[in-house]
């Protein structure tokens, strides 16, 4: 089984805020981490390799420092890593990102399974996986919470639904996005960490991929962020005061004013 896991380096979202005065994102000093959902995608690939054999390539698009998450992936046990890195990719939205990752996956050759995290913790779109499948012409399944063993060119999975789940059969090659419920990711081994230190990463530019300049970076991104702002509500509850009847009246008034009820 030839597998690719897409991993993204993200700012630790719990520490990112908007400056309420200037409406600028405050990202200075915020550490970068591997997107937590992507650990579950790596774990799923490692377990599949243990079950049926094969090879795993970790793939990331990002600035040079995104190399860190790829080394982490190697420490966890993936076989190889590719960083897609070029200034021309700056400003990519999900459409441009998925196009670029699709080109890299094609360049890798025959691939049976692409695994992504459910979503990134910065953009939180959950769109890159399904868009990737569309570019590649692969089968696709999002919100995977259980995974079978591939057999005869197909794979059975369970995906979440609001009222339960669906059992889905996919023809390979396929793209999956996985939920945290799928597995408990392992920690890196000592041997893995040593390997990660010395491993050579492949670095591919826009030219290496033969990317169409109109489909990458800002030019290839139909969406624009027109602004960011901080949510108005504070995090702590507004405690109501007065007698029980007064509190209840005040609550109903607020809920009606805010059209919650």
């Amino acid at each position, binding site marked *: 089984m030839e597998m690719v896991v897409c991993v993204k380096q993200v*700012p630790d*979202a*719990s520490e*990112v*805020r*908007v400056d309420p005065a200037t409406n600028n994102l405050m990202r200075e000093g915020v550490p970068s981490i591997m997107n937590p959902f992507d650990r579950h995608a790596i774990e799923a690939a490692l377990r599949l390799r243990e079950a049926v054999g094969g090879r795993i390539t970790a793939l990331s698009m990002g600035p040079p420092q995104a190399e860190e998450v790829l080394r982490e992936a190697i420490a966890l046990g993936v076989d190889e890593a590719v960083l897609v890195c070029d200034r021309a990719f700056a400003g990519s939205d*999900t*459409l441009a990102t998925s196009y670029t990752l699709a080109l890299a996956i094609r360049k890798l050759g025959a691939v049976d399974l692409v695994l992504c995290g459910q979503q990134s*913790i*910065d*953009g*939180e*779109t*959950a*769109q890159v996986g*399904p*868009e990737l*499948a569309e570019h590649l012409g692969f*089968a*696709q399944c*999002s919100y995977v919470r259980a995974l079978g063993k591939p057999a005869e060119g197909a794979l*059975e999975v369970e995906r*979440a*639904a*609001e*009222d*339960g*789940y*669906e*059992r*889905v059969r996919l*023809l390979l090659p396929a793209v999956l996005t996985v939920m945290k419920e799928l597995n408990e990711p392992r920690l890196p081994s000592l041997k893995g960490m040593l390997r990660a230190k010395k491993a050579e990463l492949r670095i591919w530019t826009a030219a290496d991929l033969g990317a169409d300049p109109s489909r990458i970076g800002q030019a290839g*991104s*139909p*969406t*624009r*962020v*027109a*602004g*960011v*702002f*901080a*949510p108005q*509500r504070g*995090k*702590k*509850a*507004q*405690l*109501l005061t007065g007698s*029980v009847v007064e*509190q*209840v*009246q005040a*609550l*109903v008034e607020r*809920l*009606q004013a805010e059209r*919650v*009820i």
Partner: protein
Amino acid sequence: MSEDWRGIWVVAEHRHGALLAVTGELLGAARRLGEASRQEVAAVLCGHGVEKLAGELFAWGADRVYLVDDPRLAANVDDYHAEAVAKLIQEERPSVVLVGGTFFGRSLAPRVAARLGTGLTADATEVELDPESGLLRLTKPSYGGDVLAVITCPERRPQMATLRPHTLPAPQRQEGRQGVLERRTFAPVREARMAILEAVSEGACAANLADARVIVAGGRGLGDPKNFKLLEELAAVLGGAVAASRAVTDLGWYPAACLVGQTGLTVAPRLYIACGISGAIQHVVGIRRAGTIVAINKDPHAPIFEIAHYGIVGDVLEVVPALTAELRRRLGR
């Protein structure tokens, strides 16, 4: 070039023969956008044997319903649904396409957007038209909700978005409202690469809670299983459903199928009222996406007040009946 793309569209979603509440919410929003910009509001209804749902779509505000009825669309096969929706969009060229931010909607919409090469905003909580440019402006939470971003799609069409369920106001239903029903055939160029073997519903409670706009949840603070009756009365006034914390499902006070949290359901109602629930992290992870959270707890230091928007410090057995009575009086129910 974007001038000749006109119309505000909603992709309808249904399950077990009934439309999801989010489809009504989207139509409510689409009506507002359509009226402000003099554009027609249309719904796309894909499925099999679903023609009877068209009337409901008209009542919720659709001027036109595109019905694609085919056995291959009976289940949520993304490949087929993406193809049907994308083809209609290419033929009719709407300016805006809104999709419910459900598991299926958030899987389907990016397939359609990539096929059309257009922009898609995920999981938006607010939608409006910019009065000057006429562009769709979507507000979307990111970085775990600490940042709100405004997203537009200035050039390509259609402008697409998934909208988080239960964040938009409920639509006004107009009984007997009529519209145009257009039937379209489904002729996929390629066979699906996936099959739904089975759709498993995990009990009525899960289905109700998933689609509930209001959830009233009870914890150990209720003191006795019979007090859940108070929550059921409150939920009934609000047209909502009742859920429970782990402490009470473990005690057997309420069905485990109604458990919310890490080991239970993740819910996203417009209003979540936590009654006698301490707010342990394992419970709170299940309600992060709720719109407004109200906590009723007698301990002012209970962690639930850290994440609630409104808090009442008091005895649930006293506060809940008072709240029910007040709502009955105000809402005339």
